């Protein structure tokens, strides 16, 4: 502490009250930013955070690579005869699973960030209230995109060949990122609702593991018992995985895409307002 004070008195220039007074003479206040502009500004904040703390990209680079390698070689031989065969089926699914798992970190970062003083300032600004949260999720959408590109690259190296070509692959990623953006509102809700980072993590695990594993990511649901099929066939993750698999495989799975978009809308409509209610009360 004493060192900080001494460096301060050495380095810190005095406050110039004259130029301060000149700055304070009220000029015309600019009009309030639009909802879009405020959200994009918070998105920019998220990018700046990535720039200053690049280590946080670990979970969207190393983790997805590990997922592809692990499941391809673990299950490939048993389920499809060889890892090379299996990856044709697995890659879109494991892509969905990993990115949806990564969304979980949103809750943790909201939970730690909200306790900081800067949130008091954001909440006293006359701006569109959800823009703070939307900005978060826009920053996260970038992370999801990075994770998708990383996994696809690894997949292609391992022999995955998407029949849908570039258009199909891009459409698949776009759908996945859109879904993840909507799905993340569950985590912003938990991030605001629960008291500690650990409890957020714990609850997230309880939701994410059954939801992602009980799907058609790894195997065809026809091999499962009937009661489980009922759950798996109606899970949003199954619809999303089928839609992404279809799009990347060159089909146009209209029904699955429609189901996925329906779930996407539902997540935003249900968890968006709950999140904002909690945010306003915090």
């Amino acid at each position, binding site marked *: 502490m004493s060192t900080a004070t001494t460096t301060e008195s050495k380095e810190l220039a*005095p406050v110039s009250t004259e130029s301060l007074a000149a700055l304070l003479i009220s000029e015309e206040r600019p009009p309030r*930013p639009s909802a879009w502009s405020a959200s994009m500004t918070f998105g920019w904040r998220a990018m700046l955070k990535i720039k200053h703390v690049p280590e946080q990209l670990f979970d969207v680079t190393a983790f997805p690579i590990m997922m592809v390698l692990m499941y391809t070689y673990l299950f490939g031989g048993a389920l499809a005869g060889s890892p090379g065969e299996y990856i044709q089926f697995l890659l879109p699914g494991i892509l969905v699973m990993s990115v949806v798992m990564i969304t979980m970190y949103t809750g943790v970062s909201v939970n730690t960030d909200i306790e900081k003083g800067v949130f008091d300032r954001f909440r006293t600004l006359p701006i569109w209230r959800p823009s703070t949260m939307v900005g978060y999720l826009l920053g996260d959408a970038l992370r999801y995109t990075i994770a998708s590109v990383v996994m696809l690259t690894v997949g292609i190296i391992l022999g995955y060949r998407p029949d849908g070509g570039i258009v199909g692959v891009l459409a698949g990623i776009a759908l996945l990122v859109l879904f993840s953006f909507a799905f993340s509102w569950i985590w912003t809700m938990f991030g605001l609702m629960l008291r500690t980072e650990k409890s957020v993590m714990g609850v997230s695990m309880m939701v994410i593991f059954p939801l992602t594993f009980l799907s058609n990511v790894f195997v065809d649901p026809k091999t499962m018992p009937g009661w489980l099929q009922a759950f798996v066939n109606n899970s949003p993750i199954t619809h999303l995985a089928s839609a992404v698999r279809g799009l990347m495989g060159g089909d146009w799975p209209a029904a699955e895409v429609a189901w996925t978009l329906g779930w996407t809308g539902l997540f935003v409509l249900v968890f968006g307002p709950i999140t904002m209610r909690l945010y306003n009360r915090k």
Partner: protein
Amino acid sequence: MSTQTSGLAIETAGLVKTFGETRAVDGVDLSVPAGTVYGVLGPNGAGKTTTVKMLATLLRPDGGEAHVFGHDIVREADEVRGRVSLTGQYASVDEDLTGTENLVLLGRLLGHHKKAARGRAAQLLEAFGLTEAAAKQVKQYSGGMRRRIDIAASILNTPDLLFLDEPTTGLDPRSRNQVWDIVRAVVAQGTTVLLTTQYLDEADQLASRIAVIDRGRVIAEGTKGELKSSVGAGSVHLRLRDPDQRTLAADLLRRVLDAQVQLEPDPVALTARLGTAASDDSAAEQASRALSELSRAGITVDNFSLGQPSLDEVFLALTGHDTHDSDHTDDSHDPKDEVAA
């Protein structure tokens, strides 16, 4: 507008906030005239921060009502937000971002275009003597620098009402004086400032009216003069050359000043607490009278200083208990109130 009609920046009636069993704010009535510095004085946990948070629309009151420039803080929260700025007890800026990034971010959120936001950020950093630190992350800033960037962020758009929640807690005297200069400059341009503080001399330096808060209630309110006359004028600390003369000096002070005299552990030091009885004269007048009497009696004074009444003395005079007692009923839900830096 309602500002002109009432001339009040803040008006609250019976404001209440409870946290579980604790009534952190228990019926606060305030009337803050526009264009002045209004001091809210009280110990840790008295309810100062909770009151400010309600007025800044961060917390919803559980009872009573409050208007900021005539706007209801609950029903017209957005109008209130358009006119106020808050500098909290702890840096209300993003510690991961640099000084420039923080100010540009807020400038953009206040509706400035990119170029205007950059320009304003650079000007503010310059005025606050932070140009050299502009590209550093705020977490590397010293306490005084944090305060500055924090206040700079609050005046990006000159607010009509600025909340400063304990702006100098934990600062060294030099940084504290600089914060005071900034507050004076801000008020000189017409902004109303609501300042919370634990230090009587800070309220004395800056505020024109002061409310003393204890256990969620306003226990005294008035101008500085009114408040002080209720507590006494302060105290005179003396150091003599010859310890043998101390008893003599103490007797003389008791007689001349009608003061309580306390002998300090240091054998040459003593303190005279100036009573309310003689408070027609200022503390300085009383002290100079005492000094001349002492020299006439042949007592050599090496050193003397005038002390203002402390917050403890104000509290003792107003409540009959000292500041530490109220720590038991503090809003301990709020860790920020507890961890005084």
